[in-house]
C-alpha cells in the first residue's frame, strides 16, 4: 500500500518520458490516483459533496456506536432538530450571499407564535388570518432591518443586534416571560400540519430547501443576490437595484424565522418565549450555513449545504446524547467544525478559482 501510494505520487507528479515501461504497481497506483483525482474534482466542483460525506460518515459512526441511532424514532428526533435550524439557515444563506447577516431571526422565531396567540386569544382573530398576520409582521420586521441596513447605512451586524434586543424586549414585556397555550382554535389539523405531525417539520423544511435552492441557482432573484454580494458596485452599475434585493432577503429571512418558530411551538405544544433559546437558533443556523459552505464575504453559498450543515449539527447533538457524552463537549466540537469548515472553504474556493483538480 505504501509502495503503491509512493509510485502513484511519482507517476502523478510529472509527465513520464515517452516510451517508459510502467511497472504494474505503478499502473495500479496511477489508476487509484486518477480515481482519487476524480473524487477530488467532484469535491471541488460540487461543493456540497464534502459536507454530505461528513454527514454520512457521522451517521455510520454513531450507528456503529449505538444501535438506536438509525431507528425510525431517533431519525424523527434528528429530523425535528434539523428542520428549524435548516429553515432559519436558508434565510441566513440568502443574506450571507448578498453580503449581509441577521442576528434577530431567532427572536422573530420566538415572537411569531406569540403574535398568533395574541391575535387569536386577545383580539378574537380566526387562526388562519392570525397566522398570516404573524408572517406579515415578521416580514415587516425584515423590511425594517433591510431598510436600516441599506438606506440608513448601518452595518447589518450592528443593525440586527439592535433589533434582536429590541424584539427580545417586546417579546418578554408582552408575554411577561411566561409560556402560553396553543390557542384552542389552532388545535387539530392546523397544529398537525404546522409541526405537530411526525414528519411535518421535515416536510416543510425539505419543501423550502427545494424552493430556495431553485431561487438561488435558477432565478433572476438568486443571480442578483449573488451579484449584490459578489460585486456591490458592479451590480449597481449593471442596473441591479441592490437595496431592493437586500431588503427582500431580510424579509425572506424573517418570514422563514417565523415559520421555524411556529413549527417549533406547534410541535412542542407550547408557545414558549425560549423558542430559539435566545441566540441559540440563530447561531446554530449561521453555523449550519457556514459548515455547508457559505462564505461570509458574500457572493457564494448553497441552500443544500445549509441543510446538510443543520443535519450534521443535529446528528452531533443526538449522537452525543446516545453515546452518553455530556452536552458540554458539544460546543467544543461545534467550534472546531466551524473553524475547520471555514478553513476548508477558503482552501477549496482558492482551488476552484485557480481551475482546481
Amino acid at each position: 500500500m505504501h509502495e503503491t501510494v509512493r509510485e502513484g505520487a511519482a507517476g502523478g507528479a510529472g509527465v513520464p518520458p515517452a516510451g517508459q515501461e510502467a511497472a504494474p504497481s505503478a499502473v495500479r497506483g496511477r489508476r487509484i490516483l486518477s480515481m482519487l483525482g476524480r473524487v477530488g474534482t467532484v469535491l471541488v466542483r460540487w461543493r456540497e459533496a464534502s459536507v454530505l460525506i461528513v454527514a454520512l460518515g457521522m451517521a455510520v459512526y454513531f450507528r456503529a456506536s449505538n444501535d438506536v441511532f438509525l431507528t425510525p424514532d431517533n431519525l424523527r428526533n434528528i429530523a425535528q432538530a434539523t428542520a428549524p435550524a435548516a429553515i432559519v439557515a436558508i434565510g441566513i444563506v440568502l443574506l450571507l450571499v448578498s453580503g449581509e447577516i441577521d442576528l434577530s431571526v431567532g427572536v422573530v422565531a420566538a415572537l411569531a407564535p406569540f403574535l398568533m396567540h395574541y391575535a387569536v386569544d386577545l383580539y378574537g382573530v380566526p387562526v388562519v388570518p392570525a397566522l398570516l398576520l404573524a408572517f406579515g409582521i415578521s416580514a415587516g420586521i425584515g423590511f425594517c432591518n433591510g431598510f436600516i441596513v441599506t438606506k440608513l447605512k448601518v452595518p447589518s451586524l450592528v443593525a440586527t443586534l439592535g433589533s434582536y434586543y429590541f424584539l427580545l424586549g417586546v417579546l418578554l414585556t408582552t408575554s411577561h416571560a411566561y409560556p402560553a397555550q396553543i390557542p384552542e382554535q389552532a388545535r387539530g389539523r392546523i397544529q398537525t400540519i404546522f409541526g405537530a405531525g411526525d414528519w411535518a417539520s421535515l416536510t416543510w423544511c425539505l419543501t423550502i430547501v427545494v424552493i430556495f435552492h431553485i431561487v438561488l441557482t435558477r432565478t433572476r432573484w438568486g443571480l442578483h443576490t449573488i451579484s449584490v454580494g459578489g460585486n456591490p458596485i458592479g451590480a449597481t452599475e449593471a442596473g441591479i437595484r441592490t437595496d431592493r434585493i437586500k431588503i427582500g432577503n431580510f424579509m425572506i429571512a424573517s418570514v422563514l424565522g417565523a415559520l421555524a418558530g411556529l413549527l417549533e411551538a406547534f410541535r412542542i405544544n407550547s408557545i414558549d418565549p425560549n423558542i430559539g433559546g435566545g441566540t441559540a437558533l440563530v447561531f446554530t443556523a449561521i453555523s449550519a450555513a457556514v459548515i455547508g459552505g457559505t462564505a461570509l464575504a458574500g457572493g457564494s453559498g448553497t441552500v443544500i449545504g445549509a441543510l446538510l450543515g443543520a443535519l450534521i449539527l443535529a446528528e452531533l447533538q443526538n449522537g452525543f446524547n446516545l453515546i452518553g457524552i455530556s452536552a458540554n463537549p458539544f460546543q467544543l466540537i461545534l467550534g472546531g467544525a466551524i473553524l475547520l469548515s471555514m478553513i476548508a472553504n477558503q482552501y477549496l474556493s482558492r482551488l476552484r478559482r485557480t481551475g482546481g483538480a
Partner: protein
Amino acid sequence: MTAQPTTSDTAPDPSAQGAALRVENVVKRFGALTALRDVSLRLDKGEVLGLIGDNGAGKSTLIKVICGYHRPDAGRIHVDGQEVVLRSVDHARSLGIDTVYQGLALINELSVFHNMFLNRELRFGPLLNNRAMRRLAREHLADMGVDIPDVGAEVAKLSGGQRQAVAVARAVYSDAKVLLLDEPLAAMGAKEGALILDLIRDLKARGDVSVIIIAHNYAQVLDVCDRVNLLQHGTITFDRRTADVTLEELTELVVAEYRNRRKPSLRTRSDDPDPGP
C-alpha cells in the same frame, strides 16, 4: 448652446435633430467638489466620439451622468431629440444607452454567460433560460472573435483582456443605440485591443449605433473616432473632427494646458479634482 469657447469647426447646432445624444450645460457636484462644471456635447447618429482628458478631468463622471448612474445637479440631456431625466441605469438602458464601465461591472462568482445577460436575463416563466443564454453568449463571443472556450466558466477565471471582452460584448449585444465605453482598452493586450477596435469599426459600419469612448491612447482615438472632445476641469475645451487634427496637436493640447497651469506658481497637479464614485 455651447457656452464654452470651442475651437470647433463643427459647432453643435442646438436644433440638430440628427443627434443621438445631446448634453447641455450639465453640472455635477460631489459635496464641495465640482466634478463637472459645465459640460455640453453632442453625439450624432452613427458617430464615434473620443473623449480625452487628464485623470480627474471628469470623464468617468460624465459617462455616469449619461448612463443614469449619477443625477446631474443642473443641465439637460436629450436622447434622440427628446429631453429626458434619467432616473436610473435601468431607465437609461431602456432608452438604449448602455455602458462598459472602467470597473467592468462583472460578477466574479457568476459564469461568463450569466454576466453577459446580467440584469437582462432570458427567462422561461420565473426560471432562467440558461440554455438560450449560454448559446447566445457563445455566438456573440464567436462573432466578436473572442476566444473563451467555456462560457459556463466563472468570470474570475478569465484573463484581464477576456474580462474586458465579455464586458464589451455585453454592452454591444444589448441593442444599444448609444454605447458608452469608459477606457475599454485599458487592460487589453495588443491582440485584444485590436479586437475591440475592430469591433468598434464594425459598429460604425452598421451605422445605427453611436459610441462615446474614453481613451488615453490618442493614436487609437484618432484611428477609430470620427470626432474628439477634450474634457478639462469639468468642461469641454476642444471639439474637432479627427480628420482635421494630428496626434501631435492633440498631445500638445493636453500637455500645454498642464504647462500653463504649472508655470506661474509651480503648482503641483494635486489641485486636479478627483471625483469619488
